């Protein structure tokens, strides 16, 4: 099979996969969903138009200032692109699905690797284009067609981010071995994505008080520490702002890096994939046999859930990322920003707890891999659900306890508000997952949102409302009660639309 034919096949699968995810598998919704997506993309242009400076403000910026601003704006998406590409690369090496079929065919592994890597680069660049596209169009309308160069520049950056991610993953493969790279790479992907944003935020807080990342990155101090104009450091910004030579150089660099990666790693692809597959066959220890613990059915269920959660590398990386995002407000707290810090920490902590609980509850309730076993056990269905909810709440408690303790030392009232908020947000998210539970494989966690859009939206709104209520309560505002009531009313409304309730 030619590379072109394989790429067409992969594109078709990716497109159908995307449609299935967007429509929750209901093909009759395809047109509606595509129309809604197009409308949302168009609406993003309005958001970009409101957020971006007007023509005069852009014209008033000097060339160096503009490049610094563009570089600052590009830094975060590039970090996120590397993170996304690392996650995809890990799946490229470790996910079996049709890889066995492809690698057992007479097709050269280099060709398979090239097509799969191209797919990752395309997906990585596409997300950046989807988010950055409206801004590019608005800038092109306001300041001239030169901004349209940002489109190919983003593609080149997507390719470069993918290449960087592949080499990072490969380095981990060599460093940690196939067995440990899967977990290490997924954690690294989360850290790469979050660390830049968080690091810059902490630096901004440390040096300028409560400044935004953008203000910090474009500050004179940062500007003075960066390379002089003409350095390759500014190449992406120059390419994005329409400098033809820089754009050509960026595209050539991306093509060369891609070709070199395919040339160097492609012939080893089957060897890497085989090592990754082999790693899963030897994933257990041969140490001392641990005696069984005396379990009630409920404690057996809780222990099983915790064990599975602790062994889920993707979940660990996501939890780590959420905890990392709490680092800047924790830093503010540490540095005695007082009530101001608590007002940031409390809602962020409650929000993170709600989101974490939603994910864990889905895994425990809907993502039960041995449903027949659990349902055929002599345990009442209510007791099973209760034990699973307890497992979720316990895990959320464990993840949030250190920051909660930290908060209690500096501001007892805020800690109480946060504790109540975390409890309410976690219970609400768990309840939503219970009401909208559906049978799914644990491995489909990334697509859990597709099973019920209403549950996804309700989960997000519930977290936001409880975060707001806890934040207001930390300030002693009576509005906290009204917000909590609003959250309860929203939950009551959502419950009316839950499949279980409607069927009753």
């Amino acid at each position, binding site marked *: 099979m030619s590379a072109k034919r394989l790429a067409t096949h992969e594109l078709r699968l990716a497109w159908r996969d995307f449609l299935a995810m967007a429509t929750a598998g209901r093909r009759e919704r395809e047109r509606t969903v595509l129309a809604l997506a197009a409308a949302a993309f168009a609406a993003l242009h309005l958001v970009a138009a409101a957020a971006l400076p007007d023509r005069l403000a852009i014209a008033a910026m000097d060339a160096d200032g503009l490049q610094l601003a563009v570089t600052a704006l590009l830094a975060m998406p590039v970090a996120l692109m590397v993170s996304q590409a690392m996650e995809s690369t890990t799946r490229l090496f470790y996910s079996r699905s049709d890889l066995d079929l492809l690698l057992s065919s007479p097709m050269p592994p280099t060709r398979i690797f090239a097509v799969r890597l191209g797919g990752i680069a395309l997906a990585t660049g596409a997300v950046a284009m989807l988010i950055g596209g409206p801004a590019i169009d608005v800038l092109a309308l306001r300041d001239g067609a030169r901004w349209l160069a940002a489109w190919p520049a983003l593609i080149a950056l997507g390719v470069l981010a993918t290449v960087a991610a592949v080499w990072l993953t490969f380095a981990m493969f060599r460093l940690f071995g196939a067995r440990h790279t899967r977990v290490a790479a997924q954690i690294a992907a989360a850290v790469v994505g979050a660390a830049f944003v968080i690091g810059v935020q902490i630096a901004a807080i440390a040096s300028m008080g409560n400044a935004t990342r953008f203000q910090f990155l474009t500050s004179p101090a940062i500007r003075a520490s960066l390379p002089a104009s003409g350095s390759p450091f500014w190449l992406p910004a120059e390419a994005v702002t329409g400098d033809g030579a820089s754009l050509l150089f960026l595209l050539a660099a991306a093509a060369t890096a891609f070709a070199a990666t395919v040339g160097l790693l492609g012939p080893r692809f089957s060897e890497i994939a085989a090592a990754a597959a082999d790693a*899963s*066959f*030897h*994933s*257990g*220890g*041969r*140490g001392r*046999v*641990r*005696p*069984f*613990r*005396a*379990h*009630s*059915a409920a*404690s*057996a*269920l809780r*222990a*099983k859930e915790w*064990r*599975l959660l602790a*062994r*889920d590398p993707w979940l660990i990386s996501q939890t780590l990322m959420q905890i990392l995002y709490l680092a800047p407000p924790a830093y503010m707290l540490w540095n005695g920003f007082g009530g101001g810090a608590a007002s940031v920490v409390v809602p962020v902590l409650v929000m993170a707890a709600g989101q974490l609980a939603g994910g864990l509850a889905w895994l425990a309730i809907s993502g039960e*891999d*041995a*449903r*027949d*076993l*659990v*349902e*055929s*056990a*002599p*345990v*009442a269905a209510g007791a099973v659900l209760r034990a699973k909810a307890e497992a979720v709440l316990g895990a959320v408690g464990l993840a949030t306890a250190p920051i909660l303790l930290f908060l209690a030392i500096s501001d007892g009232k805020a800690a109480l508000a946060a504790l109540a908020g975390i409890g309410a947000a976690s219970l609400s998210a768990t309840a939503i997952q219970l009401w909208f539970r559906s049978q799914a494989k*644990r491995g489909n966690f990334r697509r859990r949102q597709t099973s019920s859009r209403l549950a996804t939206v309700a989960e997000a709104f519930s977290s936001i409302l409880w975060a707001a209520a806890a934040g207001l309560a930390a300030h002693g505002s009576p509005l906290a009660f009204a917000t909590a009531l609003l959250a309860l009313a929203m939950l009551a409304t959502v419950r009316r639309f839950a499949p279980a309730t409607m069927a009753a």
Partner: protein
Amino acid sequence: MDAFALAIDDLHKRFARPAVSGLSMRVAAGEFYALLGPNGAGKTTTLRMVAGLLRPDRGSIRVFGADALVNPIEARRAIAWVPDEPLIYDRLTPLEYLEFVAGLWSVPAAEAASRGANLLETLGLGPQAQERCEGFSRGMRQKVALAGALVHEPRLIILDEPLTGLDAASARLVKQVLVERVRNGAAVIMTTHILEVAERMAERIGVIAQGRLVAEGTLAELRAGAGREGGTLEEIFLDIVQANRPAAA
């Protein structure tokens, strides 16, 4: 105490079309019963209803005298269900899986640990007892699921195509384990498309077609009923299925 491990009366279940229609059957304690039928005959639906995984539209199911519809928890204490697709947790080791199952059935820890280790050794999984199941072959997963089903010493073992994916040696091991359970007084109900296995192992055989039990008895009784003295189970089964094929529209 009910003399029957399983007593089903007038069982009905309908999905888009009737899946089980007025099925009645009895299985005694200490009996090996093979439930046969063509694809879509209603075997798995029937067994899932017995295991408490599906609610019948009508009829009654009694497990060692306990009404499985009125008191499902009591009935489930005695049952082990092994589906055709082994559903185990990839990120647990076989020992951890058995510990979990034992917990669900409230088996004392020390007893469960000893039984679990013995079962894994018997089924040839001793060397893999502490490896996570994610890299296991289908046959190994099937054996882990079977060990899980047996760790709580069930009195009624229901198996849906348990030999699929097993190599000859493993299939033999599984058959030996099941026969031993039957000798110790447990009842085994097994669906299989490997008719030689049913012919050799089952004391009684039931044939389901279109959601109804259309033939039942020992091999000799089935032969006599079909008028095929000396016939193989395959010949008898095909005759019965042919005779009960739905009339063309």
